[in-house]
């Protein structure tokens, strides 16, 4: 049976040598190497549930009246898009399960990418020959953020509209060209032409998924052609990679992980409510709600928008830099710019232009770890500010007090974290040296 299948494939594709090699491809073993896989499986769930949703969603801003089964919305004016999203939640059997699973999968997708990125950064896995793989990964993160934003924006519930208004304002705030770009994308001043909904839709269900899918393929091809990185160990050197073969060793592991990810996502989708759009209601330009929070991966932008003090940079009547630019555009662009630049910055700073198949432990590169920890803390603190109003509601800490304190703390705490990380790394390394010396001395005594 197996023999016949293999012969069939080989005689038609000539692929037997390739298959044999693939089956015995080496996967170094460490739990943190699986984070990227989690993102991959979340993407698969996203595509599957997403296709199902497109079978029911109507991307149209035509205004209709609701006369469905959900009583609080009876008779309300809303877009066909919002109505179809409510209907596919209530009327379509399994529709709500699919919608919620899709939403959870998006949140997990971005989270897995970011954890994967953090692992890659602190172990120096982005160094040559894998810097290109790293750039592709970063690009996917950027696209994933945009993809998620479009996804919850096109539903046209109240939170969608508020998010879009903010996105529009951030685009408008780009110096010299912002208003022109915004008019190009929206087709008109906000809320734009009806076609804007189709533009979001084609982006969300067609363009971005295809680009992300293509980049995933490229990413994995590059990973495989250069082989995985590994931590140094017995027999594990710059020249030799040691680990479990694809088949049989890695296959049940990866499948187990894939099914686990899918299981968690469907359990979340069925049991834990997310984005109950019927509670927000349809969006109208004149409505907004208090206590709105975006999906978690955009929280850092809300935080940054809130932190910037009140000013537009102007020259006479000309508005050079509108306020929303700093938090909404300059901040994330700077972060991504820095991440894209990091491999070459580090090469230049350390003078290390060599190939690296062995990973650093974070302590092995104290400066990288210190700066990385500082930047991560900086972003995290800004992210926390995005929930300052919730913190006020939950803990009674004055909102204005929090904002004023954080305007300083987002600079001070990261520096402190950086200094501490550097110290910890240095101490750990010093400790290892002492340990090694003691072992050597003991060996001498025994001898």
């Amino acid at each position, binding site marked *: 049976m197996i023999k016949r299948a293999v012969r069939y494939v080989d005689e038609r594709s000539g692929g037997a040598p390739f298959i044999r090699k693939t089956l015995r491809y080496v996967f170094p073993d460490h739990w943190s190497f699986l984070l990227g896989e989690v993102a991959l499986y979340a993407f698969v769930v996203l595509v599957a549930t997403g296709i199902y949703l497109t079978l029911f969603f109507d991307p149209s801003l035509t205004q209709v009246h609701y006369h469905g089964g959900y009583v609080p919305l009876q008779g309300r004016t809303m877009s066909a898009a919002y109505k179809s999203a409510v209907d596919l939640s209530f009327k379509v059997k399994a529709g709500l399960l699919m919608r919620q699973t899709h939403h959870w999968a998006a949140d997990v997708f971005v989270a897995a990418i970011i954890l994967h990125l953090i692992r890659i950064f602190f172990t120096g896995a982005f160094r040559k020959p894998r810097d290109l793989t790293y750039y592709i990964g970063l690009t996917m993160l950027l696209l994933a953020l945009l993809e998620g934003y479009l996804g919850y924006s096109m539903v046209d519930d109240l939170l969608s509209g508020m998010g879009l208004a*903010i996105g529009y304002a951030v685009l408008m705030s780009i110096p010299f060209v912002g208003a022109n770009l915004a008019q190009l994308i929206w087709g008109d*001043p906000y809320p734009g032409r009806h076609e804007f909904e189709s533009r979001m839709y084609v982006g969300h269900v067609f363009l971005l998924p295809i680009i992300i899918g293509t980049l995933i393929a490229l990413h994995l091809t590059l990973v495989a052609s250069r082989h995985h990185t590994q931590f140094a160990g017995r027999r594990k050197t710059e020249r030799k990679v040691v680990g479990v073969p694809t088949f049989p060793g890695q296959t049940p592991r990866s499948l187990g992980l894939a099914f686990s990810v899918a299981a968690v996502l469907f359990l979340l989708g069925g049991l834990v409510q997310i984005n109950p759009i019927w509670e927000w209601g349809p969006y109208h330009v004149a409505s907004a709600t208090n206590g709105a929070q975006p999906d978690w991966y955009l929280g850092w932008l809300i935080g940054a928008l809130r932190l910037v003090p009140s000013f537009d940079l102007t020259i006479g009547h000309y508005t050079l830099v509108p306020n929303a630019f700093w938090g909404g555009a300059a901040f994330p662009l700077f972060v991504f710019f820095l991440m894209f630049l990091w491999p070459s910055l580090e090469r230049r700073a350390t003078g290390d232009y060599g190939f690296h198949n062995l990973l650093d432990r974070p302590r092995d590169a104290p400066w990288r770890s210190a700066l990385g920890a500082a930047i991560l803390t900086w972003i995290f603190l800004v992210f926390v500010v995005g929930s300052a109003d919730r913190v006020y509601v939950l803990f009674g800490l004055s909102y204005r007090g929090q904002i004023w304190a954080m305007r300083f703390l987002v600079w001070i705490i990261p520096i402190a974290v950086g200094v501490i990380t550097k110290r910890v790394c240095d101490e750990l390394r010093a400790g290892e040296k002492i340990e090694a010396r003691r072992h050597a001395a003991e060996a001498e005594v025994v001898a």
Partner: protein
Amino acid sequence: MKRFLATVLVLLFGRLRRRPRLERERIVGTNPPDSRAQMLVFWLFLAAAVCGVAFPVVYAVNAIPHQTQFLGLSLGLCLAFIALACMVMSRSLVPVEEIEEDYPPSSHPEEQEKVEQIVDESGDRITRRRLFVVGLGAAGTALGVALLTPLASLGPVFDVSSFFRTPWRRGVRLVGEDGSAFRAADIEEGTFYTAFPEHADREQMGAPLVIVRLPVGELRLPPERKGWAPDGILAYSKICTHAGCAIALYRKPTFAPTEPRPALVCPCHYSTFDPSRAGKVIFGPAGRPLPQLPLLIDRRGELRAAGNFSGAVGPSWWGVRNRQPRS
């Protein structure tokens, strides 16, 4: 019945007796078989099958309450049991082995040189390279521009006049969400109202207003806006000048020591505007005051616009301070 039982027993306890194969060197490492793990995997797969079957049952039987929850539970558990079976397999059923392989060579200098040579020699016949590059560059750029041109149809690129257009002009009546007019006498202190221009599209940033009433003595409007707030009734654009959200909060201090003055607050980033001082920003990120709409009270005691806004509405952009809004 007997045969059925026998089948089940064989399935559960029978061990596959492998046919003796030709002696050959193993590629895959080997460990002794683990019959407990095999049983475990079987039961896990069985549990997955049960959960999988539950899904269509839950789907089909309308009498089952909490359908979404049970659908998620059955599908999720089905997947979870398969995942567990895979994990047991990876730990106890497949050979545990550690293999090694050489990393691929870091580069192939000879091949690199060959590639370079091929490209180099292929261009031998072009002797006037600069001319060629200039021509190619011109054609490429032109083609790029030509292909991008249709994108300009997406929206007006250079004409920014529509950012200054609002549906307000002198005499337009203010109406509420239900379309009824606002009588000045009905506007109370300590709350705010949302108003729209009568007979106009409400889904544009220039349309919605917030209306508040303050004691006339507390108003600190600049002298050129004298008369914009008849009887202390003030109208501002409802769209925040920071990021375009609707201003949906009115801070009206009920207890004296907390916050001294009433303020309009945007719930997105908490830009806070002082309605008594012409919409001045007193906290938060907004960089421009809220545009104010001059009001008048007509003979029937209803509110009408007395002109257009004091400045452009909506979030800031490069030209937002250049012009006054038009109807």
